[in-house]
């Protein structure tokens, strides 16, 4: 008998089918990876097991935990099962904790509502659970509030809540997607250790094939509410019998074809950043003391040549977004200067040179929130025209709109639509069209593909590579995702604590990192092939024993 048995699970929400005939099995002490793109139904499968489905849901099929059918459980019985027999960890640690309660109270609550113990004993168990997830008492006392903790630490608190009562089954829904790679590696190691120590079953939901290859004993690939392929990890990846699995695999490691860009040394660089400093004022500690300063960007210098694609990588808080804002002259700088094509754009004490602004454009991460929903696409993408001395009008304007839209793979007729009519990938194309329309020499791509599914991401990367080849536009490509940076850039810079600690041709840095921090980043980055080989070797050893 398996720990978790899901048989022919069908789910519809307000009549709309969400899951179709999903059947999954998990043994105690094993890890089941559920992989799929957004909308594939992987989270809804988890919520069905928890019986925390949204309003209007109707489901059929069988869900059994340790032989006990959840079909027959009342809501009251489910409340006793949740947190006690099944623990759950969510994607977004920054919002998963109640901001007005201490971490001790929140972990102890799991214990208090399920067992009859006193508050004092519950606090002691909470302390133990926090110790187990790597939050020791001296640095993380029980009376800490969530806002005092980083994202990785908060995720540890959520895990402590989920495992405090040693549940039989742990469900982790994209537990590391919002975290940096080094933090991700730590959280994954922690989950693996807990599964082994407590002989739990773990359902790991993720879109990241490399993560799942490293963690999962069995994998189920989901698409449009169905399990399209499932089996043991290594054979599944080696065989890849279903075309979708294959497509997913290819998209996740996709490297767009790119020409090598000749760099014309005679021309001034597209952007030249010299010794830029960006300080933030900290809140005053008292009414009369001067406010403290935090140096987010510390003496950074960089150059990008015409047609060159440069990557900037680093973990959250390293200053890469601040540097981006400084380069775009959205913030004033406190030292150094920034030149675009040789002309002074901004300097400490000198505001942005508006004439130069048309030479640089930006694409942001979130394609859902970076457009005004009340404007049509033609108005959205022509917004940069206000930077021109003689903005095109009439037929010429229309022509520019059409050419920008076709350049990014959209149709001319899309100009009259509103933004909600487009998917995430299409919206990111519109964002690129908006950047392209005034023919800038530099486009800053701030995590521009990070929110996209792998197959969409592969298409956008192809588009970017193609545009760079055709239009000789330069990119500053900012990302926390090293594999994407490797696929699209000629040169890469690694940033840590406001400084650029290493820079060089992309392949050189990846194959032969010099700085300790770069090595750490690369080691923490999950790589599909490496994870598979390691798993294969491990299984081989085990079978010989």
């Amino acid at each position, binding site marked *: 008998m398996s720990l978790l048995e899901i048989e022919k699970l069908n789910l519809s929400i307000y009549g709309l089918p969400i899951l179709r005939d999903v059947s999954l099995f998990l043994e105690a002490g094993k890890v089941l990876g559920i992989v799929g793109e957004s909308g594939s139904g992987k989270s809804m499968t988890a919520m069905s097991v928890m019986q925390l489905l949204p309003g209007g849901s109707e489901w059929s099929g069988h869900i059994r935990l340790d032989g006990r059918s959840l079909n027959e459980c009342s809501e009251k019985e489910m*409340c006793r099962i949740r947190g006690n027999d099944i623990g*759950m960890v969510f994607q977004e640690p920054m919002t*998963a904790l109640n*901001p007005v309660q201490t971490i001790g109270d929140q972990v102890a609550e799991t214990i208090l*509502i*399920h067992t009859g113990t006193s508050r004092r004993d519950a606090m002691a168990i909470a302390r133990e659970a926090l110790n187990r997830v790597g939050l020791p008492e001296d640095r993380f006392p029980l009376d800490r509030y969530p*806002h005092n903790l980083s994202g990785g630490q908060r995720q540890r608190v*959520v895990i402590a809540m989920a495992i405090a009562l040693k549940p039989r089954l742990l469900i982790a829904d994209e537990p590391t997607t919002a975290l940096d790679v080094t933090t991700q590696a730590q959280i994954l190691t922690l989950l693996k250790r807990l599964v082994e120590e407590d002989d739990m079953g773990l359902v790991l939901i993720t879109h990241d094939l490399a993560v799942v290859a490293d963690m999962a004993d069995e994998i189920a690939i989901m698409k449009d509410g169905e399990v399209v392929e499932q089996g043991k990890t290594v054979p599944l990846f080696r065989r890849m019998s279903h075309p979708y699995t294959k497509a997913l695999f290819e998209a996740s490691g996709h490297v767009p074809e790119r020409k090598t860009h000749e760099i014309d040394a005679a021309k001034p660089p597209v952007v030249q950043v010299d010794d830029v400093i960006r300080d933030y004022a900290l809140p005053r500690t008292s*009414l009369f003391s001067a406010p403290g300063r935090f140096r987010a960007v510390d003496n950074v210098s960089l150059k990008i040549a015409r047609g060159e694609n440069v990557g900037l990588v680093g973990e959250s808080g390293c200053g890469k977004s601040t540097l981006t804002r400084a380069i775009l002259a959205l913030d004033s700088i406190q030292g150094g200067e920034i030149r675009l094509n040789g002309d002074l754009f901004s300097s400490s004490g000198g505001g942005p040179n508006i004439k130069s602004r048309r030479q640089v454009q930006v694409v942001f991460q979130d394609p859902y929130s970076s457009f005004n929903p009340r404007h049509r696409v033609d108005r959205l993408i022509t917004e940069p025209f206000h930077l021109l001395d003689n903005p095109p009008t009439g037929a010429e304007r229309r022509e520019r709109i059409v050419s920008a839209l076709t350049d990014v793979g959209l149709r001319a007729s899309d100009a009259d639509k509103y933004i909600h009519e487009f998917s995430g990938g299409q919206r990111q194309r519109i964002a690129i069209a908006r950047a392209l329309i005034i023919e800038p020499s530099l486009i800053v791509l701030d995590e521009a593909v990070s929110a996209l599914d792998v197959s969409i991401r592969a298409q956008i990367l192809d588009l970017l590579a193609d545009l760079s080849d055709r239009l000789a536009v330069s990119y500053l490509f900012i990302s926390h995702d090293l594999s994407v940076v490797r696929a699209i850039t000629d040169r890469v810079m690694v940033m840590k604590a406001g400084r650029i600690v290493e820079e060089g041709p992309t392949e050189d840095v990846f194959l032969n990192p010099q700085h300790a921090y770069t090595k750490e980043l690369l080691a923490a980055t999950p790589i599909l092939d490496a994870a598979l080989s390691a798993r294969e070797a491990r299984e081989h050893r085990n079978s010989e024993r």
Partner: protein
Amino acid sequence: MLPFLARRIGSLALSLIAASIVIFLVIEVVPGDPASFMLGLNAAPDTVAALRDSLGLDAPAFVRYWEWITGMFRGEFGTSYTYKVPVGNLIADRVWVSLPLTIYALTLSTLIAFPVGVLAAARRNSPTDVSIMGVTQLGIAVPNFWFAMLLQLVFAGILRWFSAGGFPGWDAGFWAGMKAMTLPAVALALPQASILARVMRSSLLDTLGEDFIRTARAKGLSRRQALWRHAIRNALIPVLTIIGLQFSFLLAGAIIIERIFYFPGMGSLIFQAITQRDLIVVKSAVMLLVFAVILVTFLVDVTYAIADPRLRRARS
């Protein structure tokens, strides 16, 4: 928490000083000088001169400002030009009516709004919720003086439980005073309670959609437990803001209700003082209201910090 309180008290004092300067300047810049303004266009010159003299208008502005401020600290607010009694007594009489009435109305409105708002949010889109939303919509749309007249008609006119108006004074005993205040307090409270209940409902619904509520449910809390233990405290901030605003509004804005129930409150006093151009009363009464509003803002800020630990280290 202590540095937070010290900072808030510091900014409270600064706001008061700034407000007193603004009030003083506004009264100073009325056309002509305060004396001729108060006496009107047809006043005899020697009457104006006499008033100027009694108001001490010949002294430099900063001396008069200083006199005014230090006078208030000593409890001397000057003598009302129209009532011919010390302004301090005049205001004190009215404050002892308006302040209890405000607190009474606000307590009623909070006591009604909280359970109603929570109930509506907990049973979202149910018939209960729909009826609550309908009734509160009506409560906001109907002016409070209409409620006041309706209450008078039913409870004083037909049932004869309460008197239709007038205030016997606290000398008549605490309960007699409270009884006289009940109808005006209810009339004031109903529209406020409608607003507050709707704010409570929407704030609670926002909070119930948060990720940490899902986390709480995943821990095994029932829907009701998640609501009481995790949602309510997080939903309080907007509710507290509205309560603070309602206090300021009720303290001096109850003039129509005061008129309907023949109540000697602050609203009527200020209204009369303004129509009779009694700047001495206006100046001190407005300063007192400003003080009350700033004090309430301070208290609301402190309750914010109690409700949400993240705000305790916020900038002053």
